[in-house]
């Protein structure tokens, strides 16, 4: 689906199940709409090069705890390495970015609200935040060119590119992080 005109934000869904679109991609669409930005939503395995060319920014959404289908098709995300426009990866999206740049993940389930302490300013967020977690993997140590921005590697960024990622879900209780990415990322 494609909505609006002008600068175009591409929202990439990682959901295997259609019903998960409502939970993981739709809230992001609503935040993009709130910022009066045009957007298109596409599933990761349906992307064509034109989608990437047209996009001014990209948000890769999360998915459910049991949905690991996207992880079997990481080659579908190889375009991230060469992409020069801003990207934001949420949860599964963050795990994809980490793996594409050579970071390995470890099993670790986290569900619910927990504090994240930021070591560096991340999309205008400083100090600490109560954030919503819903993930089965954690990052023990980030590989270059990714740089840790918080304790526990919950938020990280590419050293030179505008590639941001959070293992937590900022669309829950912390939507200003996504708004900041849309406006300034």
């Amino acid at each position, binding site marked *: 689906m494609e909505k609006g005109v002008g600068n175009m934000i591409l929202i990439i869904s990682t959901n295997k199940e259609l019903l998960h679109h*409502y*939970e993981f991609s739709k809230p992001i669409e609503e935040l993009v709409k709130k910022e009066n930005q045009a957007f298109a939503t596409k599933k990761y395995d349906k992307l064509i090069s034109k989608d990437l060319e047209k996009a001014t920014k990209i948000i890769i959404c999360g998915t459910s*705890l049991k*949905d690991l289908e996207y992880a079997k098709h990481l080659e579908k995300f190889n375009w991230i390495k060469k992409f020069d426009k801003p990207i934001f990866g949420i949860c599964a999206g963050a795990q994809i970015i980490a793996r594409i740049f050579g970071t390995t993940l470890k099993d670790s389930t986290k*569900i619910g609200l927990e504090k994240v302490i930021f070591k560096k300013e991340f999309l205008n967020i400083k100090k600490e935040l109560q954030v919503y977690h819903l993930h089965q993997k954690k990052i023990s140590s980030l590989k270059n060119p990714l740089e840790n921005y918080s304790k526990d590697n919950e938020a990280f960024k590419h050293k030179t590119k505008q590639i941001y990622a959070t293992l937590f879900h900022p669309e*829950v209780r912390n939507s200003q992080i996504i708004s900041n990415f849309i406006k300034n990322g």
Partner: protein
Amino acid sequence: MKLGILYSGGKDSNLAALIAKKEGYNLSCLISIASENKESFMFHTPSISKVTAQAKAMQIPLILQKTKGEKEIELIDLKKAIKKAKKEYKIQGVVTGAVESVYQASRVQKICNELGLECFNPLWQKNQMEILEDLIKEKLGVIVIAVAAYPLGQKFLGKKINEKFIEEMKKLKEKYQINPAGEGGEYETFVINSPLFKKSLKIKSFKDFGENHSWKRELEI
């Protein structure tokens, strides 16, 4: 995929069930928790026993689990009910009507994760005005059966969710910061008709209980 609907009989679980059905999922059973604790943070309590009539109207089997409603014990009872649904109806996932409550959503997520089930929350983070509009668009018959916030009172019980109701909620939101879809527990609802119902429910009678700005209506279906 076979799904169990975590079902309170109110607007959110009914709307979530309808979305799941429209997306082609098989609604194998309803799972309801009847809590004796009227102040439960987890479960909707007014007219909960009437879910049997709703299940019958939908022709979907119901698992009705009683709980004393003590804080963490009600979660053990919820897990028991979901486990039963998995065993008896071979469900592969659970659908909830969670909108903003991280407290409810994360507890159901944990239970589903422990039982190896998918967890679907199709109303998650949805704008509350849009929820009310969708109820009308999808032709759900919804009435208010409980209130718990100033300035709502007994007169608010029995109101139908329609265009007029939405206008009233807009004003209440502006003046008193009432959550339009009652997400802060300001009011609770009961569904008497839905596209999933084979026939609509008729309310034979009702009894109201409460005082000031805290009222509940028990329905006789």
